[in-house]
């Protein structure tokens, strides 16, 4: 099974743990992720803050390249890239004149034949149907699933999960034997693109959500976006300053949690790259867990 893959700049740069864990999990489920040839940056926040046509042309070229390479379904793990690509796909489909205009700018045709999957949609479609038989070690932890903004909004375009209390990531965690806690900041913003230019605001916004996660007893925060991850992990000193307390709660990608559960090693999910060390306490497995069907005969390949 081959799927198109758009890593985006973060997965090639500051977030290698997300790339590695995504690839290793996909491989375990027989999915080969094929990088879109010669892809460029989606332009992220900077492009749509500065120029509308630029903000549609950069993702437009990516979609046209995927289509030309025959990659009709692409996995886009970064929530920001997912949002930019999906919004562009939508706008180009809605407005023929705009599509022609963007075609002229990028010098390529795009017919609108590319389907975009965010990481949760990818897991839902290709991993979850077989995950229970592959779980060798339940992810037995109380965790706060943090969706952030761009994975669920704008809902009228993305049409993915709920805007206020989404459940899809919680569902993945439940399926691998974890316990997603109920908390209030699932879709609040971490400060995103202001990470460098207004680090103080990132400390405040991320601090607010971390206080809630900590107060409700989360052992880790689970994310699906490299910007959320880098703000919560890398900007910890700004966050601690805002919270006025030291915190050691790790920030883990959903793909890393799935990877651990199916027997990948800490190295294979990329824990060595984290700024805040990942230390998860082993807990006795109790009977009332949701995952009941753990196949004992499955070989534990990597230890």
């Amino acid at each position, binding site marked *: 099974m081959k799927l198109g893959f758009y890593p985006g*700049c973060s997965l090639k740069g500051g977030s290698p743990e997300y790339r590695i864990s995504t690839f290793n999990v996909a491989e375990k489920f027989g999915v080969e992720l094929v990088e879109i040839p010669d892809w460029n940056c989606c332009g992220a926040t900077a492009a749509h803050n500065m120029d509308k046509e630029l903000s549609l042309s950069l993702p437009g070229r990516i979609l046209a390249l995927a289509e030309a390479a025959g990659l009709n379904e692409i996995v886009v793990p970064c929530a920001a890239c997912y949002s930019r690509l999906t919004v562009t796909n939508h706008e180009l489909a809605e407005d023929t004149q705009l599509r022609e205009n963007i075609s002229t700018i990028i010098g390529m045709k795009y017919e609108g034949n590319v389907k975009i999957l965010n990481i949760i949609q990818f897991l839902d479609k290709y991993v979850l149907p077989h995950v229970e038989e592959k779980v060798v070690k339940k992810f037995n932890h109380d965790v706060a699933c943090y969706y952030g903004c761009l994975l669920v909004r704008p809902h009228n375009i993305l049409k993915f999960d709920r805007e206020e209390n989404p459940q899809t990531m919680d569902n993945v965690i439940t399926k691998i034997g974890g316990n997603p806690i109920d908390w209030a900041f699932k879709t609040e913003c971490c400060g995103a693109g202001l990470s460098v230019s*207004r680090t103080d605001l990132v400390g405040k916004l991320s601090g607010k959500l971390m206080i809630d996660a900590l107060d409700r007893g989360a052992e880790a925060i689970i994310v699906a976006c490299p910007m959320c991850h880098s703000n919560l992990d890398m900007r910890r000193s700004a966050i601690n300053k805002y919270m006025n307390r030291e915190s050691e709660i790790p920030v883990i990608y959903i793909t890393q949690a799935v990877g651990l559960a199916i027997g990948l090693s800490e190295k294979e999910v990329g824990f060595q790259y984290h700024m805040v060390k990942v230390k998860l306490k082993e807990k006795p497995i109790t009977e009332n867990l949701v995952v009941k069907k753990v196949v004992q005969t499955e070989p534990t390949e990597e230890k």
Partner: protein
Amino acid sequence: MSSGSHHITNNLSGEILRHTEVPVVKCYQCGKCTAGCPVAEDMDYPPSLLLRMLQTGEADLEDKVLRSLSIWLCLSCEMCVSRCPMEIDIPKMMDFLRYTSLKEGKTNPKAKNIIRFHRAFLDSINYTGRLYEVGLIADYKMRSLNMTQDVAIAPKMFMRGKLGLIPEIIKERGKMGEIFNKTLKRKGKQL
């Protein structure tokens, strides 16, 4: 483009409607956008007030909107529009206000570093096609003269393998220059 039943007026809210189809006039000041906005308390005018200022059509208030810090602090997190009972696409409006503010040279002095960062970011894409993080930070430092920021965290990032020292360059690098020339630069905007 349809403008619905709204009369397009000859002021900034009319421009917004014409270019983005966002009907500022529909806002009835319930304040849910401001209540949900994560940066409202750091803004000079919260989102619902910006809408009210635009509704008046007064030139001096429109000028304040374009010179506000608010439009640059907006994170485009889309919380406001998801909670707006009239489904007014405030983030889309914010994008248009930013373009207009840039075009008219009215950017807020306190937003300088935010804009410098956007420019450094786009500059990196223009040259290599992809974001080169080390280059971006160096470029931003040159623009903002904020040399000490992140000095403490950079070596740790490097040690963890989070900073690549060699930029990834796409094959069709010239294509990027073309795209920038045909969009941002054509309108006289600077990188």
